[in-house]
């Protein structure tokens, strides 16, 4: 990716959000007002504890704070007994209560209650009721409801009843055993209380009291309960009061489940308020009546006391003073209706979400990549603006657009390379043609220059120059890049015809040149050969005469020998006649006799072979037979014209070579075909015939012997003869050579031009160009990445052509 972001365009649009609809929200009331901070309950309680003289009873469903626990040792030191009733035991209590207090656990304990010296006989008698979380939180209403005498008495009774009924006990130093937990006297529940109310399993004194207070309201109701779901039977009552025109204000802790609000939907006159540390629980009717509750997660065992008009007034004023800490519930409103800077979204059973209302808020839609480059250049792309979810009075919408950029991994499209390759090919071709034209042109000049003096020839060189000119023009156009490639096809065709024309010219030129050259050469050769022949003829004649002379010297013999020779020749002649006569007369007989002889020869040969077989190793036997014996046999049988017979014999398939030979021998010896049955006469004829032949050979040998004898002493002559004969042969041979030469060049000059293929265009005329189907882009650069093409342009000016070209090339138009 390129880091250059200069191509990104920034946009901004401001819109008001005052009509944003907000549903189920808590709106902060009067946030600017300073909240009146009351003395923390903890502190109040501690100061009350310090008044104790003998006895302190503490009842708390929440964890007792250390500040309170730290008072216990001080109290103990003064002899004050401390009795604590809690809903659960915490390990850290141990150090504070050890030897100084008794702590009992009653899981039903509710709220926070403290009694100082509550026994009738004791001097300081006081008691207080507060919300269960009263000691834990700060910034709540912090209201501590004081008991009157009657309430204290009943509360004390209630405490004793719950205390002795508790299920666990802790004294700090050891855990009390269960047996010792039992109260030592009978315990009676607080029955039909007059002023201290509670809800038990059987009796709901408190709920009844609350109902009666609500029912007494004529103008307004302030209700703050820790768990509205537990008291949901009160809801219809409250609703009916609201319908009668009683103004109802319901107070809750922000953290609790507010789904009960839905129960009041569509009822006018009920307003809901929330507080972050809601610590006082009450029902106030008008200015006079009221009940203070201990506040607990379960209404079971919740306790409460009736409030005096003064108490009602106190609580009301505290509520008023805490207005700045209150959040009011709106189930639907618009942003311009909300004056504060914060709202809390009510999730009903889900978490609450506190959010600040901002004066302005930037909504950034990020960078939008515009696929269409024209849209990018013209800047008309805009995100869908949405400010529904944005809690700000003014919304600044921001976005950026970026063009589709050339992919950095993209590579130059092969189209360029293809074009380049074809172009180069074409240029090379053109150059070759031009070069050829040049060559032909030069050749012509040379030929004409050499021959011009002797022959008159028409010079049509203007054609070649024209071709050259034309091609060079095309070349320079290509090189300049101005060539119109549409013309390529025509040009190629033209070049073909030009090339042929050039070749024709070249050929003709060469033929002419050759004709003249050859004719001159023939004439010269012919002259020389004729001269040479004449000389040889003379030499041969001389040599022949010389040989005849030497031969006559050599054949000269003595007279005796000559005579003897003559006689011998005569006898040989005679024998010859007889032999021929016999052969003619007994042709068949002699023939068969010869066959017979041949069979015998074969048998004898085989017999030798068989004997030899014994000395061979077993392996060699077969080879010997196959390589030596069998071919011989086949040859002999072919000679006899009896190869058929041999083949028949072979059909017997005798595997052992020796046996085959024996078999053949036997077959041949017993075959009647090769037997000649001769009578006596015939026998006699044959004997005579053989004798004649033998005799003839003997005579011939005699002749040879005489002749050899004659030649002794004539060696020089003989040698001379041989020498001379050799010389003659040589001369005759030379003559033959000359004659052959002469024969070859012929009597007359005839011109046969050289074969055409000898003259070729020095390049392939079968030239074709394989230009890509697509033209190169007219603007920008074509890239490809994978199978995708991108046509990259650089400027807005290129956009119009770029669009057409990218369309043509099926490429994405991108910016580079």
């Amino acid at each position, binding site marked *: 990716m390129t880091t250059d972001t200069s191509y990104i365009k920034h946009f901004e649009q401001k819109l008001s959000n005052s009509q944003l609809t907000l549903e189920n929200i808590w709106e902060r009331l009067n946030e600017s007002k300073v909240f009146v901070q009351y003395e923390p309950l903890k502190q109040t309680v501690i100061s009350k504890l310090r008044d104790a003289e*003998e*006895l302190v*009873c503490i009842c708390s469903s929440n964890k007792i704070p250390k500040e309170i626990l730290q008072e216990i040792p001080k109290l103990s030191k003064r002899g004050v*007994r401390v*009795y604590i009733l809690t809903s659960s035991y915490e390990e850290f209590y141990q150090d504070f209560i050890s*030897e100084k207090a*008794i702590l009992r656990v009653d899981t039903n304990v509710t709220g926070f209650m403290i009694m100082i010296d509550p*026994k009738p006989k004791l001097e300081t008698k006081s008691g207080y009721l507060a919300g269960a979380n009263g000691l834990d939180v700060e910034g709540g209403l912090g209201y501590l409801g004081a008991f009157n005498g009657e309430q204290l008495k009943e509360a004390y*009774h209630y*405490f*004793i*009843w719950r*205390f*002795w009924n508790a299920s666990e006990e802790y*004294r700090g*130093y*050891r855990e009390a055993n269960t*047996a*010792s*937990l*039992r*109260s*030592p*006297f*009978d*315990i*009676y529940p607080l*029955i*039909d209380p007059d002023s201290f109310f509670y809800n038990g399993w059987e009796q709901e004194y408190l709920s009844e009291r609350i109902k009666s207070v609500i029912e007494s309201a004529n103008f307004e109701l302030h209700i703050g309960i820790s768990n509205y779901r537990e008291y949901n039977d009160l809801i219809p009552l409250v609703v009916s009061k609201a319908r009668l025109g009683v103004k109802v204000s319901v107070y809750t802790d922000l953290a609790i489940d507010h789904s009960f609000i839905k129960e009041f939907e569509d009822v006018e006159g009920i307003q809901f308020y929330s507080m972050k540390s809601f610590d006082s629980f009450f029902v106030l009717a008008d200015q006079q009546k009221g009940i203070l509750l201990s506040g607990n997660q379960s209404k079971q065992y919740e306790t409460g006391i009736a409030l005096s008009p003064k108490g009602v007034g106190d609580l009301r004023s505290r509520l008023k003073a805490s207005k700045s800490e209150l959040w009011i519930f709106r189930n639907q409103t618009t942003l311009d209706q909300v004056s504060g800077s914060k709202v809390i979204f009510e999730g009903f059973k889900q978490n609450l979400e506190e959010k600040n209302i901002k004066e302005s808020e930037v909504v950034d839609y990020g960078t939008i990549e515009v696929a269409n480059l024209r849209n990018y250049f013209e800047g008309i792309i805009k995100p869908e603006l949405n400010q529904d979810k944005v809690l700000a009075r003014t919304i600044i919408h921001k976005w950026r657009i970026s063009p589709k950029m050339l992919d950095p991994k993209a590579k130059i499209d092969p189209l360029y390379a293809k074009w380049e390759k074809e172009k180069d090919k074409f240029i090379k071709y053109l150059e070759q043609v031009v070069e050829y034209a040049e060559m032909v042109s030069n050749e012509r000049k040379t030929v004409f220059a050499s021959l011009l003096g002797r022959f008159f020839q028409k010079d049509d060189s203007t054609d070649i120059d024209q071709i050259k000119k034309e091609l060079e023009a095309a070349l320079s156009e290509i090189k300049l890049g101005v060539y119109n490639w549409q013309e390529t096809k025509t040009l190629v065709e033209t070049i073909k015809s030009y090339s042929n024309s050039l070749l024709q010219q070249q050929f003709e030129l060469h033929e002419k040149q050759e004709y003249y050259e050859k004719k001159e050469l023939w004439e010269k050769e012919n002259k020389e050969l004729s001269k040479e022949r004449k000389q040889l003829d003379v030499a041969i004649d001389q040599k022949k005469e010389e040989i005849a002379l030497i031969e006559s010297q050599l054949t000269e013999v003595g007279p005796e020998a000559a005579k003897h020779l003559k006689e011998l020749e005569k006898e040989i002649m005679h024998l010859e006649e007889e032999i021929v006569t016999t052969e003619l007369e007994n042709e068949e007989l002699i023939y068969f006799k010869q066959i017979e002889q041949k069979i015998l020869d074969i048998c004898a040969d085989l017999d030798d072979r068989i004997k030899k077989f014994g000395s061979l190793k077993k392996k060699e036997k077969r080879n010997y037979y196959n390589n030596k014996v069998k071919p011989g046999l086949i040859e002999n049988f072919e000679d006899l014209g009896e190869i058929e017979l041999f083949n028949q014999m072979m059909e017997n398939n005798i595997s052992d070579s020796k046996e085959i030979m024996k078999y053949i021998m036997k077959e041949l010896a017993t075959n009647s075909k090769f037997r000649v049955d001769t009578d006596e006469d015939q026998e006699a004829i044959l004997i005579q015939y053989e004798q004649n032949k033998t005799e003839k050979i003997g005579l011939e040998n005699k002749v040879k012997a005489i002749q050899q004898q004659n030649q002794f002493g004539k060696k020089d002559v003989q040698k001379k003869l041989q020498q001379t004969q050799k010389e003659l042969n040589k001369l005759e041979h030379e003559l033959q050579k000359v004659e052959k030469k002469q024969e070859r060049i012929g009597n007359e000059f005839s011109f046969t031009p050289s074969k055409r293929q000898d003259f070729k265009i020095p390049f392939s005329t079968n030239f074709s160009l394989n230009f890509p189907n697509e033209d190169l882009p007219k603007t920008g650069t074509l890239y490809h990445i994978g199978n995708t093409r991108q046509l990259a342009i650089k400027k807005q000016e290129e956009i119009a052509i770029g669009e057409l070209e990218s369309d043509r090339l099926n490429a994405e138009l991108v910016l580079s």
Partner: protein
Amino acid sequence: MRLTLRRKGQVKSFESILTIESMVSNRQDIVELVKFIKTNGGLANETLLQSKMGEGVPKIYISGILNHLKSIGLLNPNGELSTRGSRIASTGLVPVEGRGQFAIYFIEDEILNHLVLYHERSKNFNKSGGTKLDSDPFVGNSYRSVIDSAEFKIKHFESKNQSAYLNQDSGIYELVWEIDVDQTVHSKIYLSGELKSVSRNILRYRSHELEGMNDRTTSKLVYKLIEDHKQEGMRWNDVTECLEVPLDGLSKEQYENLSLSLNIPSLSIKGLGEFEATKIHSIAIGPKHDQDAKKWILLLVEKFLENGYKSSHEILGYLDELRQHRAFINYQYILDTIKIDELAREVKERKNYNSYWNIQAPLDLFMDVDERFIVRNRRVDITPGKELSMMELVQEIVHVEKPETLVFSSKFVKNPAQIKKFILFVESFRSKGVKDVLLVTKEPVELNDNTIQLKLYDDVYSGVIQPHDRYFAYQSEGGWHRFKMTAELDQCRYRSLLNVDIHTKGVWQDISFMEVTPEIFPVKLNDKLSEIEGVHHL
């Protein structure tokens, strides 16, 4: 007070020609016959025996059998089964006499005198080496063999001069004497040891209890031992039968249990002989003077308080128990002055916080009955010291009502005084017209009055916390009057419990009788009332 005395001694033996009667179990014929006689009236005659033995048996045999039974003393001369005969019938053992040379093993002990332990026949009777033996202690007495428990008796010695070969070293014995003064049963004596038998080497015998050996007054012996061996500073009080000891130096266990043990060195008692060193256990102890008494009481209360919360009533009850204890019988005046809040303070000062809270919390968190549940004009408050007879009290309670049924519920109708006062209370109601009475209490109690129905707490109050307080209710004209009492009836003290009746005046401690509404009356007791009501309505 428990004590175990022990000593060891030598077993002796002699050999002599004797007649010994042994009880044997192999005479089933006689046993059967005797049993038959016993089951058929115990009087044997010929007809009875004939019926047993069959008609075929000649009469002469029958009379022979009868005579034989008489001669061996199983039948009296008149044919009645003798005591001896009866014993055979029940034990199945028949006395059989045997004469011969016997070796007799015996001991001479100051408590047991001459006691024969065992006998066996012997062969090597050495006539010459015999010494003269006084046969009197042995002849005619029954003994039980320590080896096989068989009973036997030396009938008489054969020779006139009764000489026998005496062996001084024929084994050892150990005597164990167990005394428990607090138990009503007699003390027990056991024997064990070994015999050097002539025939079978060593025979061992163990813990053989000797019956009928003891009618002695052992308590005096024990008291004397305590008196003789008590430590310095201790004083034996014969009246209270209690060892008065200084509190200092007592172990926690000792002062809490009000008892200790004393070590006794080996000793010799006149008439009883010598004993090994031993220990007297569980000797009742008490304070020696009033300072100790007060301290001691405080320690005991502290201990009493350790286990669970105690109401003032329970504490007062406990103090009352101590008043009756022999250890404090002389210090009742101290107990009378003790106040509960004072006790709480003292326990706290002693840093026994556990006990402290068990007394303090019920004081601080005491639940009084709400006035609203007390029926006006139906409340009888008795100030301490007031003298009032039971009848007068009941008159106050019932006014003009005519009670028919009385139901009374209290844990403490246990001791004779409580029972007596309850009976007086019931009798007073009876004189007002009450017919049926139901008592609900903790433990079964003998009232000697069949008309009072008794139910137990565990049955009536099953499944709920049982009430501590005392309640009663009476029915009059179909309606129930329910009362709660702030204390037990034993708040009334009579000078003597003997010869008291409903008109005898007693001195009362602080108590109130309040009629209460059904809401605070125990639920289960309310159920009981409805149940009774239902029955009556039928």
